[in-house]
């Protein structure tokens, strides 16, 4: 059986692009998170849409799971095969197909990285919403899984910037979605029925997205990062709501003292008494100096108004390396996990993130208690999305992946990985009470989420999944229900 599948895979992609060797499979069996390592049976590197169609037809015929993969940096164990099968590594498909600066979109293949696209766009004076994540990760995989970038406060999450797509269905058919279904222009998903929704937020369980159009934005000539601090999360959340009214900053992100350190202190250390607990950077951009001056005035006015209301908010310098890591994006500092894992020893996970802004303060207090109990720093981030109708709240948890009993373990005498898992599950339990929905969730989170979910939602979800993927071959298990 194994040999037959491998032979066909090799026929499809060429001998050198499919393997079932343990040594080749092994790096695909784990990621940064606590997700239990599991081996795939094959890895295959397609180069064309036709290759993908043929692989999916084979997988359907033989009922073999297929896990789409580009860099595996999703921090959710999403590319670790629950039941073996084929890792479909898409990194060879790495063409930027179109940069349309007139209409303002690009079309990319799955293997295009943030680093690659950022270099190409900057030459044209354009940008996209870069995550504070690995530059080597996929633009497409990030966007279709509701990833978020540095423009999210103004332009929404990356999924909201998708303008068209091409997909291969689990059964092998190809479909174009959005304007590209009708012309060569990849400018818009609207005003059509939102079929793109069948592939956004599904964690690779409904098909392979082979091309993606996303909106791009001009880089304004004037950029200023104004930073403030507060003594408590209540004042910070209020600041973020106050500044949102202006719709001016591209990015309004607050981080707790622990997340502003590079690296995050691990195990937990107390914050110095005189240091503010929260820092916020507000990225102002303008097309003229005058416009920038007006924005700075506006910013200062809001600071004053907040102070008059009794807020502890005040202009405050942000730690330099941390600021670079959050504004010079995509960033090697954060992307290579220096800030997160320098102290963690190989493991990184997070709970979060989409949470109503009104509930950030109470949830932060609960998370702080949980995280400190488990010896973690409460390294929490709050970001406005689209103003702040909703926003991100997430805690970064670096942890030690070495085995129990290792004399060098960061937290002595306990299973550090299991400790991290427990802490995060408790954070998710706490979060769902406050309307938090984790993004790119590990399987473990689904068990908590799906308990709370509307039965109608689960039923519709499974119906859609079964319709698209009748044999359940696409990344099985990752939705918690299928």
């Amino acid at each position, binding site marked *: 059986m194994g040999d037959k599948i491998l032979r066909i895979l090799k026929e499809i992609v060429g001998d050198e692009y499919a393997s079932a060797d343990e040594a080749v499979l092994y790096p695909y069996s784990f990621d940064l998170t606590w997700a239990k390592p599991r081996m795939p049976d094959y890895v295959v590197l397609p180069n064309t849409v036709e290759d993908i169609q043929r692989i999916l037809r084979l997988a359907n015929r033989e009922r073999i799971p297929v896990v789409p993969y580009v860099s595996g*940096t999703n921090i959710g164990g999403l590319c670790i095969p629950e039941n073996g099968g084929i890792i479909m590594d898409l990194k060879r498909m790495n063409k930027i197909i179109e940069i349309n600066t007139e209409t303002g979109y690009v079309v990319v293949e799955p293997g295009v990285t943030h680093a690659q696209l950022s270099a190409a766009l900057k030459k044209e004076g354009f940008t996209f919403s870069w995550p504070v994540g690995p530059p080597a990760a996929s633009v497409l995989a990030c966007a279709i899984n509701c990833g978020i970038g540095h423009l999210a406060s103004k332009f929404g999450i990356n999924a909201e910037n998708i303008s068209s797509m091409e997909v291969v269905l689990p059964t092998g058919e190809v479909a174009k979605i959005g304007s590209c279904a009708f012309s060569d222009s990849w400018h818009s998903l609207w005003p059509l029925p939102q079929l793109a929704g069948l592939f956004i937020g599904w964690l690779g369980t409904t098909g392979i997205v082979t091309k993606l159009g996303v909106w791009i934005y001009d880089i304004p000539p004037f950029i200023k990062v104004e930073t403030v601090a507060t003594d408590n999360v209540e004042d910070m959340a209020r600041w973020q709501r106050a500044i949102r009214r202006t719709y001016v900053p591209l990015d309004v992100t607050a981080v707790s003292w622990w997340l502003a350190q590079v690296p995050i202190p691990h195990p937990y250390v107390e914050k110095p008494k005189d240091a503010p607990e929260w820092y916020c950077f507000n990225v102002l951009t303008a097309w003229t100096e005058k416009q920038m001056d007006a924005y700075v005035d506006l910013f200062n006015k809001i600071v004053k108004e907040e102070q008059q209301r009794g807020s502890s908010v005040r202009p405050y310098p942000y730690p330099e390396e941390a600021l670079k890591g959050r504004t010079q994006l995509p960033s090697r500092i954060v992307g290579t996990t220096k800030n997160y894992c320098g102290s963690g020893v190989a493991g990184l996970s997070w709970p979060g993130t989409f949470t109503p802004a009104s509930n950030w303060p109470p949830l932060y207090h609960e998370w702080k208690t949980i995280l400190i109990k488990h010896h973690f720093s409460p390294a929490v981030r709050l970001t406005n999305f689209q103003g702040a109708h909703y926003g991100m709240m997430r805690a970064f948890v670096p942890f030690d992946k070495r085995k129990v009993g290792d004399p060098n373990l960061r937290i002595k005498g306990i299973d550090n990985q299991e400790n991290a898992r427990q802490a995060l599950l408790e954070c998710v339990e706490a979060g769902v009470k406050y309307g938090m929905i984790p993004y790119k969730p590990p399987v473990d989170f689904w068990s908590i989420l799906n308990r709370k979910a509307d039965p109608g939602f689960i039923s519709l979800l499974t119906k859609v999944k079964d319709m698209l993927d009748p044999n359940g071959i696409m990344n099985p298990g990752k939705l918690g229900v299928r």
Partner: protein
Amino acid sequence: MARLSELEKLRNVIYTCTHCGNCKYFYNWGEKENLFGRNCPSGNYFYFDSYYGSRARSAAAKGLLEGKLEWSEPLVQALFACTTCAACAQQCEVDFKDWIIRTMETLRREAVKAGVGPIARQKAFGEWTLKEHNPYMEKHVDRLAWLPKDIRQKLPETAEYLYFVGCTSSYRQKNIALATTKLLLKLGVDFTISDDEWCCGSPHLRTGQWDIAQEVARHNAELVDRVGAKKVITTCAGCYRTLLADYQQEPPHGYSDILNVGFNKPVIHTIQLIEELIRKGKIELGEYPKKVTYHDPCHLGRHMAPIQGREACYEAPRNVLKSIPKIEFVEMERSREWAWCCGSGGGVKSGFPEMAIQTAVERIKEAESIGAEVLTSVCPFCWRNLDDAIKMTGSNMKMLDITEILLEIVK
């Protein structure tokens, strides 16, 4: 020898690799432009994650340490198909960074200990080195065959510098050995050459054949004393790294823990001496009206800049080229710490010749794309592979060591 004893020593640094994958491409943020490019020769050639960057090798190390991976032919292939060019280390920002090359070479050491490595042709050059002190299957007595008698007679018994020629220049890139010798003579440098030089041990350190490296290192350390030279000069980036870092420095940058030869003589690259002489106004150069670019050898650049500084390792060759009248010096996009490897290091030229040449072809195309007529470098091993690629692609570009250009124009 205990199983994985060498790898065990690195366990804690290996576990600082988070598997984030940023080692897989070059990337750097810039005010005006962001740099992006391919950086990993083996990943670029084999594509699977098991071949990509330091993340692949740290994964293999963790797999072996945790008993989840067994030695196998594909594992050995993946471990040895790395030029150890350190481009992944350049990208890495976590504590693993400085230890990446040592980890890769330690993995190979473990493969050798387990009897599954190195690759057959690497093993053959190791065995040959024990007999004839070079990895080129040549006779030791022929080591100085490139050196004309009249020049040999001029060289003193003892001198300030011992010119450590290296095996590649002695047996293959004799043009570089000769150019260096003639140039040093022309410049009045007090140097000599020994017919008892042995391979520096670089190919053996890179391929896990550490016991062979120990033997040659011991010999060479004694040789420098025997010759009575105060310093060593070399035109080979590989020998430079080995004599200066591996013989003399503690890990992670050197192998003094393994070689233990107590060698502590200054070692300089010829290009560094020449730059100094130019700076002091001691060399007059004629014109060289050609469009020239420079390829950074990994062993001079990424491997040594963290210890010797950027000036010595990246700028010295550039300063020399830029000081030549009428030269049009052009820079490839991937240069200095972001240079694409020539493809021959780490035992790859002998173990994976096809990958080596394809890697060099990519560099040739990059140099051609900026209109270079002449591709220069300061490493005979890079010279060999890049020139092979020039010939293979039918490129009109000419490969020259900087010493070859200088010999033509020094007045």
